[in-house]
């Protein structure tokens, strides 16, 4: 990894994996088509050639076995990084993920650590339909024991994946497929920690809380609002679990208004958690709240329908206008 060079989200992920594997022999990768094929999204390209088949291991199409094997390996001295290809496939392995991995340390009274990472490609916008486009972060935010990362820039993807691999706890690392081509630099400074959100734009009138693909749409909306004379603060959560409560609440206290923007069906989306968290701290002091979400439907295939499903910049602008009107 050359610090400071221009790269993409995809290459940042590959570089983070490679750098951790160079630094620590215990780091091993497993998943479907990740070795010679380099992964369906090419995020492991070149790693098989550099590290060999013992450390970059193709698996059968067996998600329960992949996650169970990662858990067992983590309990016995390795630091596995499992790739689940599409994040929707977590549902196939949900017993291992929800009942085993999440609870292993707790129910054994802290006898073990479970240093494993599950990488999974999420998000809509590519015409993959209802079973290859979902964002499962809220599913995992409801499972104590997991940490969840949902980065939006190459810099954050690189450093947060390295931090996830070094973590003693299980981390679900989500990679939005629409961000793989996103360019940016990875710098040596400003290294994010797990659980640390970022203020992407300072503002005074409204706080927007968002993540992944929605960050850039929120920033576009903030720019539009600036033209209309309003100052919008945009927070990129980066980590969904644990949430950076302090940063979010501090911003909401400053602005008095809150808009969440997420690429999920509305009911029990994480926006509801953010709103509750802020409401508990601010009681009646909050002047306006809106949640921007996708509609409560499965994700449709046809391009115009899928485009409609995803929250757009103008939806965010409309929500901002609404909270500012009070």
């Amino acid at each position, binding site marked *: 990894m050359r610090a400071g060079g221009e790269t993409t989200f995809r290459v940042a992920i590959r570089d983070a994996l490679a750098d951790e594997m160079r630094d620590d022999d215990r780091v091993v990768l497993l998943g479907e088509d990740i070795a010679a094929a380099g992964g369906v999204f090419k995020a492991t390209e070149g790693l098989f050639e550099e590290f060999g088949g013992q450390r970059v291991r193709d698996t059968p199409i067996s998600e329960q076995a992949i996650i169970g094997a990662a858990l*067992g390996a983590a309990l016995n001295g390795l630091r596995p990084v499992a790739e689940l290809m599409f994040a929707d496939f977590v549902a196939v392995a949900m017993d291992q993920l929800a*009942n085993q991995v999440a609870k292993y340390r707790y129910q054994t*009274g*802290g*006898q073990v650590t479970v240093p494993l990472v599950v990488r999974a490609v999420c998000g809509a916008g590519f015409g993959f339909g209802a079973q290859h486009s979902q964002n499962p972060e809220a599913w995992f935010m409801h499972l104590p024991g997991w940490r969840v990362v949902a980065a939006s820039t190459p810099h954050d993807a690189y450093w947060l994946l390295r931090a996830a691999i070094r973590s003693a706890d299980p981390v679900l690392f989500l990679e939005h497929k629409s961000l793989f081509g996103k360019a940016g630099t990875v710098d040596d400074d400003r290294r994010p920690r797990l659980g640390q959100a970022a203020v992407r734009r300072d503002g005074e009138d409204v706080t927007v809380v968002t993540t992944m693909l929605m960050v850039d749409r929120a920033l576009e909306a903030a720019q539009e609002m600036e033209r209309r004379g309003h100052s919008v603060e945009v927070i990129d959560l980066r980590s969904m679990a644990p949430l950076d409560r302090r940063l979010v609440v501090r911003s909401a206290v400053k602005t008095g208004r809150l808009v969440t923007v997420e690429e999920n069906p509305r009911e029990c989306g994480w926006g509801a958690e953010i709103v509750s968290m802020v409401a508990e701290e601010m009681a009646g002091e909050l002047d306006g709240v809106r949640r921007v979400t996708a509609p409560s439907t499965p994700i449709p295939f046809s391009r115009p329908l899928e485009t409609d499903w995803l929250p757009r910049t103008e939806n965010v602008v409309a929500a901002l206008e609404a909270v500012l009107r009070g």
Partner: protein
Amino acid sequence: MNRSMTEPASQPRDGPPPPGPEPDVLVRMYRAMLEIRQFEDRVFDLFAEGKVSGSTHLAQGQEAVAVGACFAVRPDDLMVCTYRGHHECLAKGMPLRTAMAEILGRSTGCCGGKGGSMHLTDVSIGAMGSFAIVGAGLPVACGLAWAAQHRGIDQVTLCFFGDGATNIGAFHEALNLAAVWKLPVVFVCENNLYGEYSPIATTTPVADLAVRASAYAMEHRIVDGNDVEAVYQDVAWAAARARDGAGPAFLECKTYRQKGHSRGDPARYRPPGELEQWLARDPIVLLRKRLLEGGQLSEDDADKIAAEAETAVREAEQAALDDPYPDDASLAADVYAEAIEP
């Protein structure tokens, strides 16, 4: 193969049998089986007295599988089992006191009272976990064995599960992965003839579950699960080949669950006479007979060991009952290993 279910016999083998346990080891195995039987009987009573909450799944009658297998591997080998796993944890070396304290929800339990009867775990003795979701332990056993293979250590993982698990997806995914990666796992299927409340024949189209391993080109054998020496021999054989890099093996140990599935299940679904037939082949009765006939033990010795086992369990039980419950501070502890700065 047409055999009566109540007269299980180990599958004939081509070559000479692998070595069995030394006489002194066999006597220790006898003691371990008695302790387990006494332990399970006490848990049964403690549950009836309301001192054990939740549920318990007991293994009276299945002691030979646990003891035969665990005594055939090394202390540094690993083991995973199921929610019906007290016997396997004790056989692997879990102290009676910490097992009983865990089942009673005490802070001195092996998991500090956080796991309970279905999750007995003690990594210091290689008891890596008891799985309460049917079949869930098999993929994890693969991972434990994969790590040993990757690290180049000759450690073997014993993976216990019941007959019911052979119908769940995780079983097939794990057998396939273990076979294709040649993992050092010994799969030990404890076929106690009932999947919860249902006789195996009503849920499973094959009488011998061992044949399922052949779909994964995996070595497999049918073992008389009430004959502790037979279990020992076959597990020792499977563990030795796994250690040598020959990959996994599958042992179907035919045995019998003398009690119901859980709690106070009276198991009225059993055909008349079945229990009595199996009690005649009780693994502890069989071993005692063999030890007496072989001259390794006198009647007095055997009775003395039984009395000592009973005392050991009673003492562990009393100590555990006197132990404190976990304090409030432990509720939020150990969800994560690392604190995150707020």
